[in-house]
């Protein structure tokens, strides 16, 4: 009995200390003065791996989500005879919610897990410690470019997701189901506000990008350096990132769009 209580307490302490380690880790990564000459090519390489290679899944899922929104929205709105409102429905759902959130979830699955596995394997094969032996700070050489790449790539991907989704919705709504194109765009433009909707969506995706990249690199850096440890760290990255994104999304939505 006592052992169980002790195990419970140990679990709590583990969680708290893991939070502490991740905070110190973040401070170590961001605290270093960036050296543009050596840092920029590394960042570029990571932007390619994290951003450009994620583009395919983002574009395809954005297209299909937009098309599904168009189809579903048309079915529901045609009951009220207001199919023309489909444009604003698609645009608002994508720009405010689905764009940032779905992109972040896909990003965690596609790029976050890869980051964790890569860094975890580097740790398991002692590449990180040999870097330290050579006097190269792995936080700055390996971790920082990956963190920044995730942070920069995520808003770009989210905006592209929204645009492709709106285009997919237009494809279904206007070209297939025959909603008048003028009212599709007109309703959209009159109800979507650049600062309130578009920029708030971008802020959301910046926050999600930061959180996803942070969790991914931290889990990789902190993993148990065995094959089982790497696999559990990768799983944790996806699970924690998804939970953090959905939870933060509620908080951000309440702050941004809740009028109270």
């Amino acid at each position: 009995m006592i052992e169980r209580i002790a195990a419970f307490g140990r679990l709590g302490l583990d969680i708290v200390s893991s939070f502490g380690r991740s905070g110190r880790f973040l401070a170590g990564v961001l605290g270093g003065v960036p050296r543009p000459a050596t840092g920029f090519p590394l960042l570029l390489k990571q932007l390619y791996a994290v951003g450009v290679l994620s583009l395919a899944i983002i574009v395809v899922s954005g297209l299909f989500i937009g098309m599904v929104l168009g189809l579903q929205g048309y079915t529901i709105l045609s009951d009220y005879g207001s199919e023309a409102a489909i444009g604003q429905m698609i645009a608002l759902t994508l720009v405010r919610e689905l764009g940032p959130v779905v992109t972040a979830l896909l990003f965690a699955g596609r790029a976050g897990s890869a980051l964790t596995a890569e860094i975890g394997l580097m740790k398991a094969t002692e590449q990180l410690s040999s870097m330290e032996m050579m006097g190269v700070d792995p936080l700055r050489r390996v971790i920082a470019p990956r963190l920044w790449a995730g942070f920069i790539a995520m808003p770009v991907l989210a905006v592209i997701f929204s645009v492709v989704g709106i285009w997919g919705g237009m494809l279904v709504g206007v070209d297939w189901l025959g909603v008048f194109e003028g009212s599709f765009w007109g309703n959209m433009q009159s109800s979507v506000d650049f600062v309130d909707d578009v920029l708030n969506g971008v802020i959301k995706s910046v926050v999600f990008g930061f959180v996803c990249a942070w969790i991914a690199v931290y889990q990789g850096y902190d993993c148990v350096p065995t094959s089982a440890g790497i696999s559990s760290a990768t799983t944790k990255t996806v699970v924690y990132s998804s939970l953090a994104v959905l939870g933060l999304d509620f908080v951000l939505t309440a702050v941004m769009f809740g009028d109270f």
Partner: protein
Amino acid sequence: MAQRTTEIIVGLFMIAGCAALLFLALQVSGLSPKSAQSTYTIYANFNDTGGLTPRGRVSMAGVTVGSIESINLNKETFQARVTMSIHSEVDNIPSDSSAVIRTSGLLGEQYIDISIGAEMDSLKAGDTFYSTQSAMNLERLISNFASGR
């Protein structure tokens, strides 16, 4: 992969992101460069503003000529005081025009329509509409009809 190729591909990626943001700004939210044009403020008092909201549009003959800044309660007359900003180029609204709250479509948003008067003088900044017509309240309409008034 060669450093140069990576640079170009990442550059294209960032440009695609900027283009997408531009698309969201111009095509989706209808943000036009001239939206920061100069405006002047006029007021209108309504008995009932219904579902009118700030940022709603003010139109004249169906053309948008301004937007609603704020809606407050006037504590002395218990009327709603609506502050509107009208584009400066529309500076000849006759002073006996009236502000009418209308609904676009059956379920659409409410907006203020200015129905044109005949006076030669025009409304200036800070003026208040002399006559207004409140929002159509469907419930009140039905209850008036039912009680035969």
